[in-house]
């Protein structure tokens, strides 16, 4: 089984408060890592420090198979989605999908097909600003259907989605892990899907 991510002795502080310290885990192909914790426990900070948005206080993160240290190249192999969907309200759903794909240098995406997959059939050419929060989130989530990144880091991916959306997303997660991908995610909702290789980490007040 191949290792995708190796995290050793990670520590982080926010506004002087220790969120977590000495956090170590490895992630193998097919793993789903569910990070749990109360509001403000530091879940988002952990995810953001994995992709380098937040500076590390201590610790190392290595990305396999090339054992890359934290660097620019590693961004090609990860997909991060935060709380904010990065969807432009002025642009139509179609334009949003196409530009997002172009930005990540994925050629020839079938934007119509993608939007149909996430259940936005018939809404393709409406400005995203007129859609609901859940629908905007679906536009952003189309990335998961064409991305080639093996490692997904998702902060609250189920926010604003209805049950059908959640089911759809979990289906996609299952496909991804079956193909040898791995997922790190936070969620307050309990997963209705049981991944084969589920790991859990709970952070609270500096302890694990």
């Amino acid at each position, binding site marked *: 089984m191949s290792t995708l991510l190796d995290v050793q002795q990670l520590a982080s502080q926010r506004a002087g408060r220790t969120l977590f310290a000495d956090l170590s885990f490895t992630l193998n192909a097919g793993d789903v890592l569910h990070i749990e914790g109360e509001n403000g426990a530091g879940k988002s900070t952990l995810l953001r420090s994995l992709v380098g948005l937040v500076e590390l206080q201590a610790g190392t993160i290595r990305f396999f198979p090339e054992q890359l240290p934290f660097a620019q190249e590693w961004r090609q192999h990860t997909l991060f989605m935060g709380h904010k969907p990065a969807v*432009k309200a002025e642009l139509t759903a179609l334009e949003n999908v196409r530009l997002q794909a172009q930005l990540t240098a994925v050629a020839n995406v079938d934007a119509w097909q993608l939007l149909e997959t996430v259940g936005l059939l018939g809404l393709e050419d409406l400005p995203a600003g007129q859609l609901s929060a859940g629908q905007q989130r679906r536009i952003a989530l189309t990335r998961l259907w064409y991305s080639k990144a093996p490692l997904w880091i998702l902060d609250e991916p189920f926010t604003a989605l209805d049950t059908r959306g959640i089911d759809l997303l979990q289906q996609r997660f299952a496909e991804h892990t079956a193909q040898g991908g791995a997922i790190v995610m936070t969620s307050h909702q309990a997963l209705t899907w049981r991944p084969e290789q589920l790991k859990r980490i709970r952070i609270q007040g500096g302890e694990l």
Partner: protein
Amino acid sequence: MTQPANWSALTAVMRRDLMVVMRRRSDILNPLLFILIVVSLFPLAVGPGPDILGRIAAGVIWVAALLSALLGSERLFREDYLDGTLEQLTLQPQPLALLAFGKIAVHWLLSGLPLVILAPVCALLLKLPIAGWSTLLATLLVGTPILSAMTAIGAALTVSLGRGGALLSLLLLPLFIPLLIFASGAVEAALVGTAAWPQVLLLAGLSLLTLLLAPFAVAASIRVSVN
């Protein structure tokens, strides 16, 4: 990263910004209207005589341009910050400075270039003698990229602060001073009949230098701001 990927990301950023602003035309028109208003207030304040107006015309147009740049500067990264686009840009494998350059370029296209086009009207209103027109246009053409680049640095630094407006002016105005001095100096030189090209060349050089360095400052600032 391969060249096509860089190019693809750059054009994606530029196309996105262009499309967004084209759907919100008031963002282009309001700063231009502001300049027109400032320019038409001046004759009312200092009197309509052509001698005094003609002498201060270039300076007034440039000051109006600086103020309107400050006025719209907050918006440069605000939306992108709020909707998470900025975060995604920093996570691209492409160099962030390249993407920042794309944003600066679009900002210039939609604020600097219209200003150059509007300038003859302002010059007319302020009775700038014909001898100074070409120099005024030349300084605007080579000077406004500096305006866009510097504005981008300031906007990127203050984007995560809810109320960056006044702070932004404080940060940017000192940095705009050489631009103001050389640009209005060039027009003045043209009006008294001496060569204006040294200042225009100097401005062009400064402009190139700024465009070369500013994307890196903007990239660093964005990384600090999305933290």
